[in-house]
């Protein structure tokens, strides 16, 4: 299986604070990886380094054969390969659902009118929101907005998708509808890296779980790892999560 994302000894500091202290892991095509860990352990930072929303100080990150830290990186090409969904949805409030979805395909990939429209419909079908195509973000519930955000990423046909605590801002009922969409994507063969606090979901949906602690990959394994933690830190973390 081909490697889609590969981090090797990644270091990242904000000022004097070292947030990532030698992070290494690989994600293969079609794999679903969940990253868990305490608040502040560097999960979001690791994710944001992958599509270079943050620059790293040392180490290397490779995405689809591209060196992310290379000075001559084609940033826009990288961003087309990597989709990201944020905790706070970040839908464009002045655009309809359809306009949100087709903005990047039209402007970045030059997809034209009818084709763009079809793209939006397909993406919305995947997240179960076909009837909301003309709505504005503020007319949608949080769960619906987050599904539109997923559809917006999907419409760019990324090779890997990153999810950063996409359900943390949602009520439990709304969390379910978003997680179902993500599970469907996972089953469909999408390569996914997701930071999550939903342990049940991580165990169920992820092929592999990475536990981060103080800026390092502390423990890694299959979902079953969550039932039999090896390190006291993970044991402690899991005890507090439940």
């Amino acid at each position, binding site marked *: 299986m081909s490697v889609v994302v590969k981090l090797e000894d990644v270091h990242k500091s904000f000022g004097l604070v070292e947030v990532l202290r030698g992070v290494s892991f690989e994600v293969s095509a079609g794999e679903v990886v969940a990253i868990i860990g305490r608040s502040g352990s560097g999960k979001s930072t690791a994710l944001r380094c992958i*599509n270079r929303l943050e620059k790293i100080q040392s180490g290397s990150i490779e995405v689809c054969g591209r060196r992310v830290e290379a000075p001559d990186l084609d940033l826009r090409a990288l961003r087309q390969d990597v989709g990201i969904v944020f905790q706070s949805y970040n839908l464009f409030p002045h655009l309809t659902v359809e306009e949100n979805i087709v903005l990047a395909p039209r402007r970045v990939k030059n997809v034209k009118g009818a084709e763009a429209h079809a793209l939006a419909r397909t993406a919305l079908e995947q997240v179960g929101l076909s009837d909301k195509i003309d709505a504005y973000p503020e007319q949608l519930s949080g769960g619906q907005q987050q599904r539109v955000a997923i559809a917006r990423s999907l419409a760019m046909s990324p090779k890997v998708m990153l999810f950063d605590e996409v359900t943390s801002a949602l009520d439990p009922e709304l969390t379910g509808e978003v997680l179902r969409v993500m599970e469907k994507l996972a089953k469909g063969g999408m390569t996914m890296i997701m930071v999550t606090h939903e342990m049940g979901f991580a165990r169920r949906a992820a092929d592999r779980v990475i536990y981060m602690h103080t800026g390092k990959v502390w423990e890694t394994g299959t979902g079953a790892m969550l039932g039999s933690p090896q390190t006291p830190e993970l044991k402690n973390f899991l005890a507090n999560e439940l």
Partner: protein
Amino acid sequence: MMYTFDFSSLWAYWPEFLAGALTTLEMTFAATVLGLCIGVAGAIARGSRHAWLRVVAGGYVELVRNTPFLIQIFFLFFGLASVGVRMPVLAAAVLAMVINVGAYTTEIVRAGIEAVHPGQIEAAESLGLSVPQVYWYVILRPALERVYPALTSQFVLMMLSSSITSQISAEELTAVANNIQSITFRSLETYIVVALLYLVLTVLLKSGFWLLGQGLFPRRRRLGTPL
């Protein structure tokens, strides 16, 4: 001491009044378009990474907003003339208006830009949009939609201030009135008529901006809520 109003002697001058009003509208239109360009550029400069750009733009805004328009006009018009730059009065008037309103729009647009959440920009960058595309589709468009009411009131105020350009004899509505009253000696009547004409212009301009807003901002039209 009974004053008898006599508006009838002003009838003959309706073509002049109309021409003056049209000139005022034209000046306002030109200054609105150019002033908006300056405002957007100024707002971007005020948020620039380069300190010197921020300082220049900030200095421009403060200087213009803390001095009277009349002084700005005199400085520009008589100043340029004194160093040999002769320009048509109307051009000088519009230039002064643009410089003036540009400073106010800079502040308004800047407030709109600052209200755009940084997450929006990250989302757009993550979708692969280029820097100019991010600026246009994700920062400026919602920023302009958000501050549209403030912008348009500023342009209406500018239309009213354009009357001050009569002081360098730009042939707009107020200057026309000055001429007519000096011929007819019906000063009070003339200025009452012109006040009414300005009121009509104000209403016209406000309605025009409202209609334009309905066309430009479908979200506002459909939801009716501010962004």
